[in-house]
């Protein structure tokens, strides 16, 4: 499965935007996704790619899963897919 379009689709759905409004450079903040929205997005990504993302809302910077933009999220997912498959 191609990661990028699927992630953009998940994030767009969470942000209630068109997929065309979500770019690789977008941050979750830009898209209006709050802490609950983030946790829900991570859940949706885990379900979509059958991976487990080590994310703790209390220390988002502690895991190497970088949520600072859509691009870093895509990179993180690709890494986890290769590690966990």
């Amino acid at each position: 499965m191609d990661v990028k379009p699927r992630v953009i689709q998940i994030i767009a759905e969470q942000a209630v935007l068109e997929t065309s409004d979500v770019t690789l450079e977008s941050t979750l903040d830009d898209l209006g996704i709050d802490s609950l929205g983030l946790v829900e997005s991570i859940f949706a990504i885990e379900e979509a790619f059958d991976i487990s993302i080590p994310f703790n809302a209390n220390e988002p910077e502690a895991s190497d899963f970088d949520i600072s933009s859509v691009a870093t999220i895509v990179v993180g997912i690709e890494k986890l897919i290769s590690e966990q498959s």
Partner: protein
Amino acid sequence: MKRVVITGAGSINALGFTVDETLEAMREGRCGIGELEFRDVERLAIRIGGQVKGYEPEESFNRQQLSLYDRFTQFTLIAAREAIGQSGLTFTGELAARSGVVLGNSGGGMTTLDDNYRTVYEDGKNRVHPFVVPKLMNNAAAGHVSMEFNLKGPSFTVSTACASSNHAMAQAFQLVHGGASPVMITGGSESMLCFGGVKAWEGLRVMSKDACRPFSANRNGMVQGEGAGVFVFEELEHAKKRGAEILAEVAGFAMSSDASDIVMPSKQGEARAMQGALEDAKLNPEDVGYINAHGTGTAANDKTESAAVADVFGAHADRLLISSTKSMHGHLIGATGAVEFLACIMAVRDGIVAPTIGYEEPDPECALDVVPNVAREADVKVALSNAFAFGGLNAVLALRQFS
């Protein structure tokens, strides 16, 4: 209005099977959090909790009782027996008719639900035990306490997630304060340390995998606990007349709602609850020597609570002591305020303030005296107990030294 005093206390939790054992652990800064032990725990990412271990239900209950009592009801009855035993009260006649029980609880019979969902969904069976409903209902514990002790007055269960016990004790206080009841049994109970209970919390991504470190800069989330705390709230003259031992006086309380977010705390909502409790108890901020914090060990709670305390207490915030005993017994959700109330009693009665253990690094956003790691002696005249629930529902109680 009537003055309200506490004439009995009981508890079972990860720190001990009695109040004395619990307070001893709190004085010693002992941690009751450890590896969880129950079916399917290996399927969880979060495997620690403040679990009641070494507990043998058969020592406290017979077969018929056990078929009707979920674990949260068992905990409640054990704590109620200790509390009412200490008070020396027996409920008959007019006293029984006017006395009741108000308890806090969030998840109800979660282990009963978990077991029976397994039966029908996982095992594919089409028959469940006939007592599933009377076991799992949130008010089962209050009902059984009323039956065991012949309490025939106002009795109900309050469910406000992590503030359930404080809201319940506030209701019991009002019933005695306003003269409706001479005695109320109150507190709370919780038992959601089972696969489904922890799995649900895991989903929120706010749980710690290693420890509960409230106010410490390296805190990484909450840790669940289980157990019960039960108290006897009694009208002062009623207690004096029978020569009862008085543990402390419940001086007042306040409740507030953030009306803001389902999970994120609000400094203003918390501050209004603390301020309101001071006003209700006719106290000045300077009277408060100790606050038992909500202190969950999450990033959001601890900094918000610290800021709210600073707002309410001003310069006095730097002088008062504030600690989170959740670092030792975990977060007992609907029972947490009740077990934490024991730390408030210890502060005003014994002059010993329970520590915040697991404290490793100061956090500039939680710059208060959190009694790090070691209990402290202090002459505390008034203690506050904070509880701030998901839903934005807050309840704060004020406890005063009785002399």
